[in-house]
């Protein structure tokens, strides 16, 4: 088995998901199957093959350094779950 429950637990913290013990159990099995399937890739010899991160061959796409209007603050904050008149609010950020 390629994936352990501890792996899955660690990944859940990295990906900021809280999984119940039952979810963790199920996820370990399901992800394990998928990861095993992905190991199919290992059988291919890719020596000397350039990785392909984009499906297009574009380069040097830039914009001019021109200031454009920002969003009115009310609009910027409108979708925030918690905010005051000026800022987004989150549980205290302390030495993190």
């Amino acid at each position, binding site marked *: 088995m390629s994936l352990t429950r501890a792996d899955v637990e660690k990944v859940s913290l990295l990906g900021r998901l809280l999984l119940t013990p039952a979810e963790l159990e199920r996820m370990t099995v399901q992800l394990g199957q998928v990861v095993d399937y992905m190991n199919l890739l290992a059988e291919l010899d890719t020596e000397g093959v350039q990785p392909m991160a984009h499906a297009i061959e574009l*380069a040097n796409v*830039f914009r001019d350094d021109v*200031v454009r209007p920002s969003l009115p603050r009310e609009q910027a904050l409108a979708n925030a779950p918690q905010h005051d008149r000026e800022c*987004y609010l989150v549980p*205290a*950020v302390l030495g993190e």
Partner: protein
Amino acid sequence: MTAPYTTIIGLEIHVQLATASKLFCGCSTRFGAPPNTQTCQVCIGMPGVLPVMNRRAFELGLRTAVALNCQIAPFTKWDRKNYYYPDLPKGYQISQYDLPFSSEGWLDISDPKGKIEPRRVGIIRAHLEEDAGKSMHDEAAGQADSRIDLNRTGTPLLEIVSKPDMRSPAEAKAFLTELKLLLTYLGVSDCNMQEGSLRVDANVNLHVHTPDGNVPTPIVEIKNMNSFRAVERALAYEAERQWQVWQETGQRLGQVPKQTRGWDDQANVTRGQRHKEESSDYRYFPEPDLVPATVTAAEVEQVRAELGELPAALRTRLESTYGITPYDSDVLVNQGRELVAYFIALADGAGDGKAAANWLQQDVLRELNARDLSIDKFPVSAARLAELIALVKKGDIDHTRAREVVFVEMLSSGKSAADVLREKGIERVDESELEALARELLAANPKILADIKQGTTKAAGALIGQAKKRNPNISPNRLLEICLAIAPGM
């Protein structure tokens, strides 16, 4: 006795580039706006938005890297650095990982006062990335929440990483000073540390000298240093702290995880910061929303050609062309490109580099500091000041009066030196007149004459005041010379 260890220091500098708009959107980068008034869907990272690279930011980065003698990569790409923090709205920072646009440069540091040895500090890389926002927490007010301001989010940053080539806090400070000067000359950043335009982190450890050779101690990263002075003090503190830890534990590099410590400027100590193991797994991968950039050798040469004269070359030129000391050239160059231009015009106009340097440092800089002016606002042009220096050289006016009377008048009235001289009736006193006056004074003061004859030449100084009363235009130095010359024959 030699020190029991060598301090090894590398620096990481984040510089905000002087663009008008952010790295990936058109929001202004202006400092000090009310919270969350300089954001848009792109820099807030709203669902569906895409970044588009600011050309100017790339150009400013390129200019800096070339000036730092870096290799410029012909092909560069952007990557995502993934981590969660409330001031990072996308959950990732667009940065550069394995193919930064520049690497392998250097910056020379030295100190004309001789506090440090000249040294070439290597630059590992310089890359472009976006800034995060700010989280504010008022513990004193007992707030349960932190407040997030995203105005700064997406401001273009250049991250410059030095090699661990510095060997003392003073060298680190010298490196930062020289780097800041270079950035200022290049016009790529305002380098304002108070506003966060220039931020410094340091990596430091010790190489402890033991009979079995040098032993490296664990590397510590120091953050939260808000001035170059703070960097110097934090590094000094940290070296001493690590030495204590070494003596207590004997821990070597690799035996404990890398630690991050924050500098407390009030308490003058570094403190360990909370650090979870997983938080350093940034899962970098190529940013799919941005395409790569390419730079040709010809483009690099073009950038190099347009750099202008940089501080190190300028110091050398001022010393060789104008015969000024390394100390003087350092002072002048450190004042910036505009002041150097003023100096060159002054030295050329007056035909005397040394005098120009003295006038600039003693009179012009004092006045600029007192009035909090920049050189372009200085009321006396280089040409007019050069005229005054020339008059002093010619002997039409003595140096002290030139400074205290004429220069002061030029500053307030904006008039030329010649005009001030004319208005104040200042004119050269010819030699025969001076000699007649000298004879008269010596004759009237037999005690002084006798003293001079006996070799107490400084006794002649007492005549200056009387001479000035008789004729304020006399040159005191010349009068003294004449007194000493004629006294033996009287």
